[in-house]
Every structure is written in C-alpha cells, then in structure tokens.
C-alpha cells in the first residue's frame, strides 16, 4: 500500500517536472511553472522520507534528515533572498555546484558501502560500480567547475591558462576513465585509494576545464555544467531504481544541453569555440590597431542633447547592473518621456552576464515591457534615433564584430548603435570590456564618452534635466 503511494508520488513528481519546464519556457506561465515543479519536488522529497523502504526496512535517522533539511532550507532561502539581482548568475552557479557535490557524496558513501560488502564476501555488480563511478566523476566535475565559474563571475578568480592545457586536460580525463575502467573490470574494490584518486583527478579536471574560459562565456559554461549535474542526478536514479530522479535528471540533462546550444546561437558562436578557443588567448589579430583619440562630453551637454532629442535609445550593459542603476535609469526615462522624448531600451540577448539579465533588472525597476526592444527591432530603430546612451555595455556594441575578422567576437550579432546620430557612452574608464578587446566605436567621430559610475552619472543627468 505505502509503496504504491510512493510510486504515485514519484509519478506526480516526474509529471510536474515536465510541466514545470514546459511552462518555464513561456513568459506568461513561467512563474507558475516554477511553483508547480517546486510542489512536485516537495511531494517527492516527503514521500521518500516517510514511505521509502528497502528490503522491508523504512528509512531511519529522521533527526539527522530533518535537521539537514532545515539547515539547508534556511541557508538556501536566505542566500536566494538576499542575493542582489546582479549576482543572480553567480548564485545559480553556486547552487548548481551544491547539486553536483551532493551527487558525488552519494557515490562516495555507496562505494564505501559496496566495498565493505565485497570484503565480506558478497559478489559485486559491475553495473552498480559503473553507475557509482559515473555519478562521482560527473558530479565532481560539475561541482569544481561551478565553483570556478562562481569565482569568475564575482571577480575572485581571474582567467588562467597555460600552453598545452587542452592536452593536459585530455590526459587527466584519460587517466580518470582508465582508472575507473580498471576498478570496474577488476572489481578490486580493496584498492580504495584508487577510488579517491579518481575523485581527486575529477576535481582537478573540473577546475582546469573552466579556468581558461573567459568570464563573458560563463553563462554558457554554467548552463553546460547544469546539464552535467542533471546527468549525475540521473545516475543516482539508476543506483536506487528511482524513477523521479531519473526523469528529473535526464530532463535537465537534455534540456540543459539544448539551452546551452541556444545560448551559443544567441552569441553566434559554436559551443566548441566557447570551450576550446578561450577568449583573449588569440586576440592578437587586431588589438594593436589605432588607439585613436576619443572625446568626452559633460553631464550638462548630455542632458541638453537628450532633452531636445526626438528619440533616445538606452543600451544597458553590465555596468548598469554593477552600479545598481536600474531605478535611476527608469527615472531618467520617465523624465525624458515627460518632455516628449521617445525613449526605448535596446536589449542585446547577451548584455550583462546572462541572457535575459537586463530584462530582469529593468523589470525590477518597473520599466514598461513594451519599451524593451530586442536586438532586431532595435537595429531597425537606430537609423531614426537621435541619441544613443550606452550604460556600461561594450562588447555588444563593438562594430569589430561586423568588420574585423581577426576579432575574437567576429560574427557575434551586435547592436548597430553607430547608425544613430549621436552616441554617448557611459563607462567607468577606457578599460576594455569583459572580452578584453578594444572597441573602435569609442573613437568614432559620432561617439562621446561620459566617464563615471552609471548610477552617479544618471543621478547627475536627472538633476541636470530637471533644472533645464
């Protein structure tokens, strides 16, 4: 009876995951989709705690389980509630790493369990051993990789690569596979140390895998690691013959892979290019070209040209997110609208650190959704635009992506801001953007630089426009 209820609960869990993912891919239903998946997750978790049994035995250690659940819930909720909108991508990466670590720990405990059984004379199942190794390796790589991605996104870890790194990675991966294969085939589980060597090598591989990839490509990497963790969870499902873990894990594994490819498409770069051809390493192509002279524009001049323009387009980028300037930005937009200026936002699909980052941020500040133009729409508007105000965006407006085949971002679709009459670029300094490449846009005659932190610059602009 109880086992049947458990099976039904798992069925509900699996179905909610599918429906949840489906709903998450449409803007109107996304929020409910998330809640439905969460409800299904809760049902599966509590059904497991109270109804799961193995060889007629119920689960024990309720105190341990519940205290861990409570600790995890409190920490998780606090972290998720407190995190700033700008730091969302890091948070996702961190949580993803936790899932990977969880899968790896399960494998370690199960391996320990199995090796005791074998020493006691039981026959081992090679299939189980294979699954344990797969869960360990994938989970660990996902954990280590996610930690690096997290560190890179919040600026704690710099890009790091050395010559022949790809070969070293390949060798490490080969050793991991060879050792696992040896242990599985020989059933020599007495060689416990070798198991931990595999574990350690997986950590190293995870680190080296993400280290050389540039920060601008982190979203793609996180999405990829996300699908890794999904696969690791699915191996757990195999281990316990657990259908909900299996469906949930595989679903995320395949959906995550597709999502990764979609993200790459949005940046117009093949996945292999992201993973192997790390940014910066090969930018020698054209970086030495004319630094040229740029001109600056004052706050008051900017205020004047924007107030008397007919159409203004704001191009938000990571700089806006860092400065938490979305509210001031909205204020400026309202102020200009009151003066009869038509203000829109041009949203590049990968502006910020993640696709959709800018939409989330501006929606937080109550910016009208209709004002957020996607790249194609925006590009049609630029020739009719008087002033473009770029707030901390760089690579997504770099014309080199269209004109310079030597540039590492060549081929990426960009916003054609140079088609408008005047471009005002707000940046903190002349330092190149995340991809580490020069932007010739800054040196074009139409462009003027407005240096400073996005928030304070916008505040000054608002005060200035009010007094006009």
């Amino acid at each position, binding site marked *: 009876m109880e086992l049947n209820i458990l099976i039904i609960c798992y069925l509900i869990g699996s179905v909610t995951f599918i429906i949840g993912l489906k709903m998450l891919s449409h803007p109107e239903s996304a929020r409910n989709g998330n809640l439905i998946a969460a409800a299904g997750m809760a049902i599966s978790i509590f059904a497991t705690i109270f109804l799961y049994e193995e060889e007629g035995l119920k689960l024990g250690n309720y105190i341990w389980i519940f205290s861990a659940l409570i600790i995890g819930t409190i920490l998780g909720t606090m972290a998720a509630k407190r995190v700033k909108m700008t730091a969302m991508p890091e948070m996702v990466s961190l949580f993803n790493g936790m899932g990977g*670590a969880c899968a790896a720990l399960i494998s370690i405990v199960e391996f320990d369990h199995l090796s005791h059984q074998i020493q006691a004379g039981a026959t081992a199942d090679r299939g189980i051993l294979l699954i344990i190794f797969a869960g360990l390796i994938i989970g660990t790589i996902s954990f280590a990789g996610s930690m690096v991605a997290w560190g890179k996104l919040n600026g704690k870890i710099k890009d790091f690569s050395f010559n022949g790194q790809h070969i070293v990675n390949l060798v490490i991966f080969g050793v991991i596979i060879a050792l696992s294969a040896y242990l599985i085939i020989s059933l020599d589980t007495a060689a416990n140390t070798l198991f931990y060597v595999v574990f350690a090598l997986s950590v190293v591989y995870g680190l080296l895998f993400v280290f050389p990839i540039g920060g601008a490509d982190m979203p793609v990497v996180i999405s990829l690691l996300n699908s890794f963790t999904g696969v690791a969870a699915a191996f757990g499902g195999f281990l316990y013959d657990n259908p909900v873990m299996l469906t949930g894990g595989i679903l995320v594994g395949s959906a995550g892979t597709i999502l990764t490819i979609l993200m790459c498409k949005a940046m117009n770069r093949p996945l292999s290019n992201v993973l192997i051809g790390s940014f910066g390493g090969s930018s020698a192509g054209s970086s030495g070209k004319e630094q040229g002279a740029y001109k600056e524009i004052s706050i008051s001049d900017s205020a004047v040209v924007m107030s008397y323009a007919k159409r203004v387009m704001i191009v938000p980028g990571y700089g806006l997110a860092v400065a938490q300037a979305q509210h001031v930005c909205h204020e400026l937009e309202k102020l200009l609208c009151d003066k009869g200026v038509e203000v829109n936002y041009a949203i590049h699909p990968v502006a910020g650190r993640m696709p959709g980052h800018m939409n989330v941020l501006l929606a937080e500040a109550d910016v009208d959704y209709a004002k957020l133009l996607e790249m194609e729409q925006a590009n049609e508007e630029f020739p009719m635009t008087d002033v473009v105000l770029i707030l901390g965006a760089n690579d997504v407006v770099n014309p080199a992506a269209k004109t310079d085949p030597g540039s590492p971002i060549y081929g990426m679709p960009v916003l054609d801001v140079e088609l408008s009459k005047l471009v005002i670029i707000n940046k903190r300094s002349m330092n190149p953007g995340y991809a580490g490449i020069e932007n010739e846009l800054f040196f074009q005659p139409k462009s003027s630089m407005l240096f400073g932190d996005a928030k304070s610059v916008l505040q000054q602009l608002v005060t200035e426009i009010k007094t006009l």
Partner: protein
Amino acid sequence: MDETLNWLSQHQQMIYIVILSVFLGIEVIGRVPSVLHTPLMSGANAIHGVVIIGAIIVMGKAESENLLALVLGFLAVILGTLNVVGGFVVTDRMLEMFKKKK
C-alpha cells in the same frame, strides 16, 4: 558480454525512460525566447536538485556506527536542500520581476 546483456535487459525500463526523457527534454525546451534563458536555466538547476532524494536514502539507511555514511549523508542532504530550495527561490525571484510588467 553476457553480463552486459543481462544488465541491459534487467534495466530495460530504466533505459526506455532515459531515452524518452532525452527527447522530451529537447521537445519541452523547443523555442524558448532568449529573455527566458536565465530563469529557465535556474529552474532546471532547481529540478536537478532531485538528487537530494538519493542523499535522503543514503542518510536514512546509514547504520548508526557508520560515521562516514552519517557525516557525508548529512552533508549531502544539506547541499541537496540548498540546491532545491535556493534554486526554486532564485528562479521565483527572477520571474517575479517579469510579472509586474503587464
């Protein structure tokens, strides 16, 4: 060879689920607008937190003298909960912002 074939036939249901789920995952995501990439990734991130069920099983069947299983299991449940709870809450916070804009 026999062993492999046996194993495959023993687990054929599971293997069917895997194959069908792969295609389902691809279908379900289909054509998602790029605006939703981040929330979708975050939502998927929360869903793979199902791995916590494995952690609960490990924890629940650990004998009281098996310190390794107890400690690692405990840690695994905490990490899994972080993944699940944090994942869903972050996703909800992201999507909350989309709602207001109607």
